[in-house]
């Protein structure tokens, strides 16, 4: 099959991908770049699972768009953020952390798209009201949660409330264990 070489800017990196001329951005991400975090739920723009953020040249806003109905060739020139690019060296983005801690992730399949929509909302509106959250997420279908814990997670990410679930403290291993390991090392050392 005839292929074309295209250049995409994804998660801050420039990537050359060889795709069929009619390939969608979702195909390029999932098959070409192995960024499988963007999900395919309907493949025709109805469900929002493939949502990625796109920043057009000259714009300072990251806008949520649907990768399954964006042609890969036509996505050249956009700065793209996928779910894999939302977290950084410091770990999960506040939105990702909040989704994990609020029980907003059940099956998790719609959530990469949902979290990116939430990120775009918070970029623009740091302290959103409930109707603003509902509106911003209305293009991402979730079948598990009834959306309730998702709203909670967005509010947590916005610093407006505490998450319902938390990892137990202490988060580090017990001191006894560390001492014990050192002891072992001394025993083995000649």
């Amino acid at each position: 099959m005839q292929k074309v070489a295209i250049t995409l800017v994804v998660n801050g990196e420039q990537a050359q991908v060889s795709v069929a001329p009619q390939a969608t951005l979702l195909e390029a991400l999932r098959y070409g770049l192995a960024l499988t975090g963007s999900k395919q739920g309907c493949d025709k723009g109805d469900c929002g699972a493939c949502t990625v953020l796109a920043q057009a040249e000259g714009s300072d806003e990251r806008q949520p768009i649907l990768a399954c109905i964006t042609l890969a060739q036509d996505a050249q020139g956009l700065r793209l953020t996928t779910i894999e690019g939302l977290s950084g060296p410091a770990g999960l983005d506040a939105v990702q952390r909040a989704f994990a801690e609020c029980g907003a992730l059940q099956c998790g399949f719609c959530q990469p798209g949902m979290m990116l929509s939430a990120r775009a909302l918070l970029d623009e509106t740091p302290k959103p009201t409930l109707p603003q959250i509902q509106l911003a997420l209305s293009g991402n279908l979730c079948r598990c949660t009834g959306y309730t814990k998702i709203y909670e997670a967005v509010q947590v990410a916005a610093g407006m409330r505490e998450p319902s679930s938390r990892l137990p403290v202490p988060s580090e291993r017990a001191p006894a264990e560390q001492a014990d390991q050192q002891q072992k090392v001394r025993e083995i050392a000649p």
Partner: protein
Amino acid sequence: MSEGRPRKSPTDLPESKAPTRPGGIGARVPKVDAAGKADGSGLYADDLSFPRMLYAKILRSPHAHARVLKVDVAKALNHPGVIDALVGAELPERYGVIPWTQDENALAVDTVRFIGDAVACVAALDERTADEALRLIEVQYEPLPALLSVDESREHPEIKIHERNKSGNISKHVELEFGPVDAEMASSAAISDAIYHYAGSTHAPIEPHCAVARVDGDGNLTVWSSTQIPHYVHRELSRVLGLPPARIRVIQPLLGGAFGGKSDPFALEFCVAKLALKTGRPVKILYTREEVFYSHRGRHPMRMHVRVGLDKEGLIRAVDNKIDIDGGAYSSFGLVTAYYAGQLLTGPYRFGTYRFDSTRWFTNKPPCGPKRGHGSVQPRFAFECALDEAAEKLGIDPVEVRRRNFIGEEVLTINGQRIGSNGFLKCLELVEEASDWRARHGKLPAGRGLGVAGSMYISGTAYPIYPNEMPQSGVLVKLDRSGRVAVYSGASDIGQGVNTLLAQICAEELGCDPRDVTVVAADTDLTPVDLGAYSSRVTFMCGLAAKEACEALGKKLREAAASKLAVLPGDVRAELGTLSSSSEPHKNISFAEACRLAEAAAGVPLAATGGYRTKKLGGDYRGGTIGASPAYSFTAHVAEVEVDEETGIWKVTKIWAAHDCGRALNPTLVEGQIEGSVYMGAAEAQMEDMVYDRRGLLYGPSLLDYPIPTSLDTPLIDALMVESNEPGGPYGAKEAGEGPLHAAIPAIANAIHDACGIRLRELPFTPARVLAALQARDQRNQIAAVSPQRTA
């Protein structure tokens, strides 16, 4: 395990318990797989890819009913990029989830029975090529008359959808009567008698079905599938492929939603496996959204003629339900559906007498199956509406009539099911208070209303799908010298969070940090069998199995620690990675050290297994075990609606849902199950409907045309938990994933009645239906106004 205990009153339930230890039972621990799902690294079936992998596509029937005379794949095989093809004759063995009703073929052998039935399959280098090749397959059909409704199937027994079927187009008929229904009905003070129609709806998980197969150099087959029943898929693959089960491995990767829609073996699993065996290359099939709709197994359309008779106190004297079930083209779980439609109605209220006559019919439409609340959501809707209507005739408040009929705890239902704990009254009380029912029901301004409903559901079934004496669920727990705990569980985490519960049970019993638990799940080579995520059985059965395994190991760890710390084993407290003396907390060792000491003491690696063994339950009559569960959950909902009387457009603004889950092992996850259930129930009331044209063609098989609610359509949901402490459950727990769906629909219907005085008996409650009902109401009122003798 302790037997039931007396309580002062059924609402006198223990307060919701604080977690016993950090990360243990009752703790709101984030899910163990949450971070991997949050950062996009978690792998679902379609995220798997292997070198030389082929992509296969399935050709589907454009006829609702036809004989397949010829399938010729020669041209497709010649298409560049096509590697192989598959036809029905290569997989002639029939399969089906229920051993007694196996009537499906991976690809049609001689007959297609619905539009979308699988006919042939092509494997190619990529999906585009496979799609092109499908159009090159030549199929000769001899169209047969299609039966598209229950009535057509009844009226035309001569047109048999399944030629081997003994009784025309009846998939299953069940008729059971408990007590003299007719006599009791005749002497009832108030009777509600009406016909209800429940529309078909489908699961619509956001992840479409996907399967990948690979054969290794030794000829062993591995199938990764988005299934919620790896064990049954394993069994059926073995039978259909004619391979020993020991050479087949089924793995369930992360699963993107199921709700019952992935609890049958499906064509794609057999096709990828066979094609991998034929080509020696990995093969993947990802269903399109349209194919997900045709695979269906969703909620059965039901027509229910329900009669409910109350005595003058409002007590239920008689319930009679005649049910016709539109099953679609294949059996699926249909045998069970026909039973569940009747067997699961007999709580939380005491029935004086009860009869149901339930018939599941084959029709030439995509097969129905188990959708969340399998079989019982439809009759529950009809019954709870009928109960309201009958109570209204007696002037009894809807909450009050439900309270009066409460069946109690530690009792047998009329059909012989044993109810243990029962927090229904508490549920009712909570939603009554939360919704301010007494001040608001019947008193809201025109167009606004409140409605209540209750329900009951099973926590697994007493009967495994195929008869055997082995445990329904098994867990293996292994401790490593590093302090890492590995749990091997066959159970399917389909998003409900069972893997997290397993880590919490380890934290509870062993005293480890829940983060130090690796859960290896749903891999038939590695994990003990669990029968699958259906009938709300997983938390209950897998939970008990895990508890059993962990208890054995926990004892060894405490003994080893006690010996080291020179205290009694009973004095050792294990918590979050440290084992310490309760009386002298400065005496402590790490969990890892306890593991090493215990392993040294045992002289063998530390591991233990646990299992859930099925108890004999249920009534002593044919079918008495179906619907018999080791524990029942209970739910009460109040819904608030607003109806625009001029357009029939209505909105459910809020649902308060209280659910008796026995014990919330992880309250965040339980709330999530309640909220998701309420959403899905409300969706069925609002907009979901599988509609077919006169050919049997499903209108709009897409997430655009089949509308599922967005955030803007979903009511605010207040999930309330009731903990009745089930004596037989793991730490007192019962199910929470399906029960809370049921009551949403009748609560909404009853709320619409409160808002504007109409009784809706057909789902979904489209604005068109609401408007028609409002107009009929106005007409009745006019007639009533001019004929005074009718206004008593």
